[in-house]
Structures are given as C-alpha cells and as structure tokens.
C-alpha cells in the first residue's frame, strides 16, 4: 500500500516533469515557426523605401495603406485571383484525394493478377523527378490546345501517386478486411461499401491529404503561369509574381509582402476547418458489430 502511493507520487512527478518539458519544446518550436510570420506582418506594414533598408523588428504604420494599395492595384484583382485559386485548389484536392483513396482501396481490398505489378508501377512513377516532365506537360497542353483552361491544372490530380501511397499505407494500418467482408455478407455493393463504410473510416487520412493537396495546388506557380494568360483566370501566385515583376515606377515591396500575407489566410482557414476531422478513429470493434 505504502509502496504503491510512493509509486503513484513518483509517477505524478514524472508526468508533471514531462509535461513541462513537452510544453517547453512546443513553445520553442512555435516561436521558430511564428517568427517568419511575424516578419511577414512587419514587412507588410512597411513602405517600399523602408523595406530596402533591411530588417526592422517593430511594425511600421503603413499596414492599411499597403492593404489598400494591393487591393486597388489595377494590374491584379485580388478577390478574383483568390476565387480562381480556390476553385482550382479545391477541385484538385477533392479529385486527388477521392481517386487516390479509390485506387488504394482497389489495390488493398481485391486480389487480382496485375495487383503487384500495378503497385510497383505507381511506386516507380512516384519517384520520377517532376521538373523535366513538367516542361513536357506544358508542350502537350499547347499541342492539345488546353491553354487558358483549368482542366490541365485539375484533372492530372486524379493520378497522384504520393496521395495514393499514403492512402494505401493508412489502410494497411487501420482498415481490417473483416469490415469489408462483413459488409459483403450484409449484401452491400462494392461502391456502396467503399463510399459509405470505408471512406468514413479514412476520415483523418482524407482530411490530411485534402489539406496537403490543397496547399500544394494553391501555391503552384510555374504551370499556371505558362498555361493561363487571361487576366481574369490568373491565380494568386501569378499575381504575386506580377507584382514583383512590376516596373520601377510601380514596384512596391510593401504591396508584395501584403499580398503574400493575404494569400496565406484562405489556406490557413481551410487548414483549421479540415484539421478538425483529424480525430481519433472509430474502434474497429464497434464497426464490426
């Protein structure tokens, strides 16, 4: 009895100690992460001339002025750019995640002849560096007259090996085949099983990949810059690059930082919204019943 309480006291001390250490680590890392945002906010509050003078530790008084200037810049339309980027990024994220889960489930749940070779093939194409094939892809789009369309930016997301790989690994660790078998016994069709039983179990993985693909697409510059030239179709990164390429009479670094800051807000909201779904999974036992 005595020994037991000494043990539990010791355990409590250990727990408090580890909590302190964990919080210290978290706070330290948070400061590292937030520092660049702090700089971004400060820089967004400075004038172009002031920014040329290098770093400043405290915000200056030009935040609203930069916001107004960026918003009213005639060469870009910020709300339109955000909408365009959102449409592309959301569509890419949804297609990419859904079809990757579908593909992964196809390989995870079924036995078929080409299964192994298919898996190896997808793993192999995942490893091919993107840079060179991106150039070939642009030429392909020119040949197929697919410029000034969002389709070549969205549809290729259906074949996303990295997302697929995550989905299949996730299924390996959390999706017991008993559940699928049980659904079959209950007479559930294969697509129904996937959409109604499997997908909900993958909620955390789906949220994670929705976030990642959304962010990646949102920040994509090179392909959209080469494929879109109508002003009303341009995306946020193109507009930021355009501000940075402005001629000397209009160039304003304050505006550039302001737009970079603004461009982060929508993705941050998407992240906060979706990360709520990264929650503890349902216990396999309960579904089975």
């Amino acid at each position, binding site marked *: 009895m005595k020994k037991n309480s000494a043990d539990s006291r010791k355990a409590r001390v250990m727990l408090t100690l580890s909590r302190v250490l964990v919080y210290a680590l978290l706070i330290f890392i948070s400061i590292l992460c937030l520092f660049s945002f702090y700089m971004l906010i400060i820089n967004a509050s400075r004038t*172009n*001339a*002031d*920014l*040329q*003078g*290098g770093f400043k530790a405290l915000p200056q008084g030009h935040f609203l002025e930069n916001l107004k200037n960026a918003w009213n810049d*005639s*060469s870009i339309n910020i709300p339109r750019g955000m909408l*365009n980027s959102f*449409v*592309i990024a*959301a*569509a890419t994220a*949804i*297609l990419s995640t*859904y079809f990757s889960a579908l593909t992964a489930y196809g390989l995870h749940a079924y036995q078929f002849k080409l299964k192994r070779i298919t898996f190896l093939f997808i793993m192999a194409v995942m490893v091919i560096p993107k840079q060179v094939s991106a150039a070939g892809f*642009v*030429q392909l789009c*020119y040949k197929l007259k697919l410029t*000034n*369309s*969002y*389709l070549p930016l*969205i549809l290729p997301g259906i074949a996303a090996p990295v997302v697929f790989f995550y989905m299949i690994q996730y299924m390996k660790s959390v999706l017991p085949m008993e559940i699928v078998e049980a659904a079959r016994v209950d007479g559930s069709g294969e697509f129904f099983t996937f*959409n*109604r039983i499997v*997908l*909900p179990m993958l909620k955390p993985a789906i949220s994670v990949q929705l976030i990642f693909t959304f962010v990646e697409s949102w920040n994509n*510059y*090179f392909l959209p*810059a*080469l494929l879109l*030239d*109508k*002003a*009303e*179709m341009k995306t946020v990164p*193109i507009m930021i*690059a*355009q501000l*940075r*390429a*402005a*001629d*000397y*009479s*209009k*160039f304003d670094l304050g505006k550039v930082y302001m737009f970079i800051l603004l461009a982060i807000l929508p993705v941050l909201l998407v992240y906060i919204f979706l990360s709520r779904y990264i929650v503890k999974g349902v216990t396999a036992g309960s579904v089975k019943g």
Partner: protein
Amino acid sequence: MKKYLALLLAVLMLTAMFAGCASKETTTDTPAASTETAEPAKTEETKSEEPAAEEAPASEEGKVFNIYAWNEEFKGFFEKYYTVPEGVTVNWIITPSADGAYQDKLDEALLNQESASADDKVDLFLAEADYILKYTQSPVTQDITALGVTDFSNTYAYTVQAASDASGVVKGVSFQCCPAALIYRRSIAKDVLGTDDPAEVQEKLNSWEKFNAVAAEAKAKGYLMTASEAATYRVFSNNVTSPWVDENNNLQIDSAIQTWMQQAKDFSDNGYTQDCDIWSDECTAQMFKDGKAMCYFGPAWYFNFSMGNAQDAEKGCFGDWAICEGPQAHFWGGTWLLAPAGTDNPTMVADIMNTFINNEEVCTNLVKNEAQFSNNQKVNELVAQDESYGSDFLGGQNDIALFCDLAKNIKFENNTIYDQLLNEGLQANWREYCKGTVTEDEAMSNFYKYINEKYPTIVTP
C-alpha cells in the same frame, strides 16, 4: 459523403468552365459591337495623315491584336497615348518574368506562330536589352523598315543597333532610352576630391586610372569607392571590343572584362569595395546618410527604383547626390517593341512603333508626364534646355541635360545572345574568388561549368 463530394465537384467544374467561357466572351464582344456604324470612314481619314501608314483599313487586318509583355509599364503608356483603330481588340498577354516564365511563354507562342489561328498570333512583343538578341537574331522577328518604320533620325543610335540583327536589319524600336551615369555622394566627393561640382568631379574621374587612384584616396579617408565590386561591371561590359565568343564559338574574355576582373580583385583585397551583389541589402545599405560608398552607377530609373535608402526621410541623404559621365559611357535597361514574323496586323505594328519614336506629342508626354527619357532626341533636348528644371534629389542638377549628352556616345556592339547569363555568371563566380572562398582556378572552372550547362555549343577552355 459521396453525394456532397459529387455535388461540390460538379459545382466546381461548372465554375471552372464558366470562368473559361466568360473570359472568351468578354474579350471578343465589347469592341466589335461599335464598329458596324458609319465610323470606319472616319478612321481612314485620320489614318491617311500618317505618312508611313499605307491605305490599309483595319478591316483588312486582324481583329485581335496580341501584345506579349512581362509587366504593365508599356500597357499604361499605350492605353493613354495610342489610339487603337476601330474594330481592333488589343489583347495583353502579361506573364511575369519570375522563373523565366515570360520568355518560356513567349518562345512557345513564337515557335507556334505559323500554326496559330489569326486571332492567336503574336502581333507585338516586348523585350529587354539583356536578351533582345535572342529574338532579333532569329527569323521569328521581321524587318520593320518593310512595314513602314523608316525614320530613325531622332532616335538614339544604340537603340537601333540593339534591335538590329547581325546583318543590320532593324527588327524593332525602343520607346525609352536609358543612358547611365556615375552617381556620387556630394559630401564624400568634397572630402575626397575637394569638390562636388559635376564638371570638376568628372575631370577627376574620367578614366579608369584616375578612378582607381581616387579609390585609394577614398579608402585613406575611411570611405568605400563603390558599394559592390560589380558596380563598375556594366561600364566595362558595354564597352567591349570583342564578343563573348569568336567565330568558332570559342569563349573569349575581352580585355575590358579582364580589366574589370583585375579591378574587382584589387578593390576587394584593398578594401575599396564590398564583395556583394549590386542588388543586395549590403550594397544599398551604403546609401544611407551614414553610408561610406562614394560611387554608384546607373540611369535615371536607378534613383527611384534602387536608391530608396538615399531618399529615406530619416536615415537617407536626399539631395547629397550628383551625376557625371564617369570613366566611360554606358546604358542600363530599356524596353524594346519587336515585330514578330507572321503578324496579321503589320500596319498597326508599324503605326505603334512610329507613334512611340516619332510622334513628338506622345514623346513629350512620356518625358513630361511619365518621367521617361524618351527615344526622341529632339524632344528630350527641348526639356533639357529648360533652365528652371533641376532634380532635387541631385541637389538641383539638371540630369536630363547630362543624359542627353551621354546617350549619344552609347554603343551596342559586340553583343551575343549569351551576354546576360555570361555577364551574370562571371560576376557571381568571380565574387567567390574576390571573397577568397575559392582559388582563381576554381572560380574560372566553376564559370566554365556554368557556361557548359547553359550553352552547350560554347567551347570553354
């Protein structure tokens, strides 16, 4: 879940498609609508006043005029000062230059020019001095004298040289001229040279021998001659006597460039300058009031674009600057309008070019309203003669007058399509040697590797 996904997806796809279609409609609809009435006659009347323009009503030419550019500078001037013929829609295809996107996009369009439909053809595009030869030395651009741009009597000679191919065929014009000068700190010049008068300073800095000697004197008084070892590079590279490659495509380093390399290393070793890029914070930090650098080099746009520190209300030194020619004449920057082969609007191309070099009213507006140094000598000189004019930033000096003189001496010779990257690559790799992080051999070997990667045909030692 699936239902929501499907719904969301459908909505998104519709939006995407709608956005695509909507844009097409807006570009074609608006201007065409107003042409059907009695107005075409009027256009021809006004048109015939132009001497160069042939009797070619816009209706025979393409209805869509596509201009490729990397920013909105020229678009602004174009919309203010050029009257677009009735019935023609001007389409601006603006691709930022970041990551090489502008040239990638333009190249793709020019190389597909033949197969493009009339309304998609490039009709005019913009290029900078740094890479203009890539386009003028290629059949993707055409002779503008054949289109009706023939009068270059008022333009500056170098702007025409820059837009000409190897056999002297002119392929475009510049709407601005960018003579560059030696920009010096008046207070430091007084301390080092005993005077800040532009003429007297010029007298003491009019050759590289004098310039190098003054650098030692500046150092003795605790100053820097320049803020970057590359500050003088452009002055040397604008005055080379041989191109980067010989007729067999062997790399050759001109004696002027070699002189710079020597100067850079000497300046660096002696502490006359800093080892940094001309665009770096380190370089511009020396423009503050407590800065130590005496000389910068640049054209008129440099004052506003790069000298923000000098203009800073608290820490700057507004008015403590002046300009003089310096050791050699040179230029920096400028935008050219080039005529692509295969345009379906040749008359309009010529008309635009003539407007921006020979229409005195437009050129005067560029100088007076847009702070441009135009490419029309007559117009610039009229402004230069204005006794009341003086730049406050330069302590009251009339910079336009000096730039007018400088512009006449600028040359654009011995250039190749490789210039921009070879100039950048040499500076960057040589800087490592100046800093002492690599040996001279390593620096040169890295420079050669840099060349081999970018230009497979150049033969390096």
